């Protein structure tokens, strides 16, 4: 390799280096200016209210919320900001804001009431707002469900009820009608699978699996935690019955892929024309309508033959759950009263009605009057939604929601238990024992703190 000595370095490149450095410095200054301009402006005299929420399934819902926020802000001369993130990222954001004790004033919480227990010491009491909001809206659906350690730490905001979405044309083809119980669906699934259209129930590590499998567990009279909120009740005869039922469902009526499904998979299964039925909110139907998806091989739109019927009944009970999306106010916020005021504004009947309208009824509030919203009569396929709402309970039922009960959901203990038995990896006893041990660990960890 040639070795240039210092003296041989050309004059031109020395000069150009100086120019480069000068240009770099200038560039850095310019860059700094641009970056500074990109920074959120410091709050001066005007008050500012910030709200973090999740990107809702129907984009119009977000737009309506923003409109209400802007309207309220204009009326009260407050600068407002609505920030939207994907729902899977909410958990990261919440943790970071609480850890740093700084962030947004209002925040979406969920999916589940468990956040109120987890962040109990960081949320503002909302007893007054809850009391104000209820009377004009016909009262809350089930007040006691939403209390965490006896207090209103959040307001339950909306839920997507879980009916059974079914292909009516395929139902006709196999000669079935008016399915209502889980046994009915097993039979339908078997017949459907024989003609290439299996049932679609997720039993993987996903929220939908928690919902449906808990529905099945409850419909057989089982549960995972007792009324006191701390006794683990998963080890029971009813659980074993539910386990066996799901095993039959998996082997006789479904395709093996359901073990790895995520929340969107059952939507895709239905809309691709494969699944004969899924346990899902109306999101699948809505997107099929919007994208004008057709039945494979035909020109008819698939949305026309999708119907929603009530969530199924079991030998003991008809009960289901869903994601309880809530809203709360962080107590490190400097605008607590303003935040409360906006909540009162948003929860006024007219605003709630407009907001539900924007979402085509996907986002059902927990207020009695809203279950009678006209949108549920507008589309014949929505007629059962209010019925489903009536039998919807928090996932920790019959116990109150606690951080521990939430963690059981977050770690997908129930779906894993069912999956291990359904796929034959464990016997029913082993699966139950595994789940029981995992839950005891979780509850023990939580108990130590109190």
């Amino acid at each position: 390799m040639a070795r240039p000595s210092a003296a041989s370095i050309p004059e031109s490149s020395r000069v150009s280096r100086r120019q480069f450095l000068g240009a770099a410095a200038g560039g850095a200054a310019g860059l700094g200016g641009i970056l500074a301009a990109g920074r959120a402006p410091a709050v001066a005299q005007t008050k500012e209210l910030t709200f973090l929420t999740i990107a809702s399934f129907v984009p119009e819902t977000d737009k309506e919320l923003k409109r209400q926020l802007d309207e309220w802000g204009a009326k009260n001369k407050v600068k407002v900001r609505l920030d939207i993130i994907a729902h899977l990222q909410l958990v990261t954001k919440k943790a970071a804001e609480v850890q740093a004790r700084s962030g947004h004033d209002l925040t979406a919480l969920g999916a589940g009431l468990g956040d109120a227990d987890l962040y109990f010491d960081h949320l503002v009491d909302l007893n007054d707002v809850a009391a104000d909001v209820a009377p004009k809206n016909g009262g809350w659906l089930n007040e006691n469900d939403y209390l965490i350690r006896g207090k209103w730490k959040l307001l339950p905001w909306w839920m997507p009820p879980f009916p059974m979405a079914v292909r009516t044309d395929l139902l006709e083809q196999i000669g079935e009608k008016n399915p209502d119980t889980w046994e009915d669906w097993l039979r339908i699934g078997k017949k459907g699978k024989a003609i290439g259209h299996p049932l679609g129930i997720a039993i993987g590590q996903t929220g939908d699996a928690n919902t449906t499998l808990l529905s099945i567990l409850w419909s057989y009279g089982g549960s995972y935690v007792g009324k006191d909120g701390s006794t683990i009740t998963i080890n029971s005869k009813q659980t074993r019955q539910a386990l066996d039922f799901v095993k039959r469902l998996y082997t006789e009526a479904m395709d093996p892929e359901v073990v790895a499904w995520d929340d969107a998979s059952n939507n895709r299964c239905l809309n691709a024309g494969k699944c004969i039925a899924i346990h899902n909110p109306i999101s699948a139907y809505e997107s099929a309508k919007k994208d004008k998806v057709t039945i494979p091989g035909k020109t008819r739109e698939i949305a026309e033959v999708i119907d929603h019927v009530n969530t199924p009944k079991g030998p003991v009970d008809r009960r289901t759950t869903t994601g309880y999306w809530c809203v709360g106010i962080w107590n490190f916020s400097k605008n607590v009263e303003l935040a409360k005021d906006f909540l009162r504004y948003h929860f006024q009947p007219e605003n709630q009605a407009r907001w539900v309208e924007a979402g085509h009824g996907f986002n059902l509030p927990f207020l009695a009057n809203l279950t009678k919203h006209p949108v549920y009569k507008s589309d014949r396929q929505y007629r059962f939604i209010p019925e489903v709402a009536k039998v919807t309970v928090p996932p920790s039922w019959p116990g109150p929601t606690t951080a521990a009960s939430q963690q059981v959901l977050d770690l997908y203990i129930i779906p894993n238990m069912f999956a291990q038995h359904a796929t034959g990896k464990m016997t029913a006893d082993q699966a139950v024992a595994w789940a029981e041990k995992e839950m005891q660990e979780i509850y023990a960890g939580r108990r130590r703190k109190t």
Partner: protein
Amino acid sequence: MNSAPRWLRRSRPVFTLYLPTLPFVLFALFPLYFMFVTSFKTNAELYDVNSVPFWIGRGVTFGHYELLSKDTFFWSWFVNSLLVSVAASAISVVLGVLAAYPLARLKFPGAESFGVAIFITYLVPPSLLFLPLSTVVNRLGLSDSLWALVVTYPTFLVPFCTWLLMGYFRTVPKEIEECAMLDGCNRLQTLIRILLPVAVPGVICAALFAFTLSWNEFLYALVFVSPAELKTLTVGVFSELIRGDIYYWGGLMAGACIGSFPIVIAYVFFLDYYVSGLTAGAVK
């Protein structure tokens, strides 16, 4: 020594060289091709199980790109990513050059420990680090601004730049610097006037790498920046195009295509520098 006919001899490389390379190229490119094609497919065709996935059968649509441009802050995100990546890379390369020089050339107490300490920072995953880091960022008053990212990105960029430049500097013979210093230059002047010009490929390589890593970063950008117009590309695309249980595949692919574009361009221009930078940097 080869007695085969000439045409066979001349085309042998095709079989022993280019043909075996083909699977690698296909493997590397296929997902990207797929991404590209999907971004132009209509939704009806995308969600139809019977359609052929390899090409577009039912008409090209620019709808996904339009959705991105009009209904989201996509171009703001693009600019944000660009600003942050350029700034963070610049800072990291400067710090890397400054740190690599003593580590490569000078003997001083603590050299070895510092060298090792740099590597150790990589053992701590960002998925753990971000929580305490968010407290720090907050105390510095940087949250919800792009500065938070410009300041935190160098934490994972500087170590790699330092390592790369260290290796690169070592390949440059010491004598030329020693001559310069005998002529009266101090260390800083030696670094800037003598070493850097020779080390340009290494610097460019480090800068490219830093730019790529910044551009791809997701976690810190999600946690430290909330306002919609200030998001970076990867975060923005995820927030707006994944709603509940619906993935806007067409839009996601369109976003991915545009999102990859600048980096691809940069690499096309600087590929030779990149390879030669690695050449010297990796082989001390």
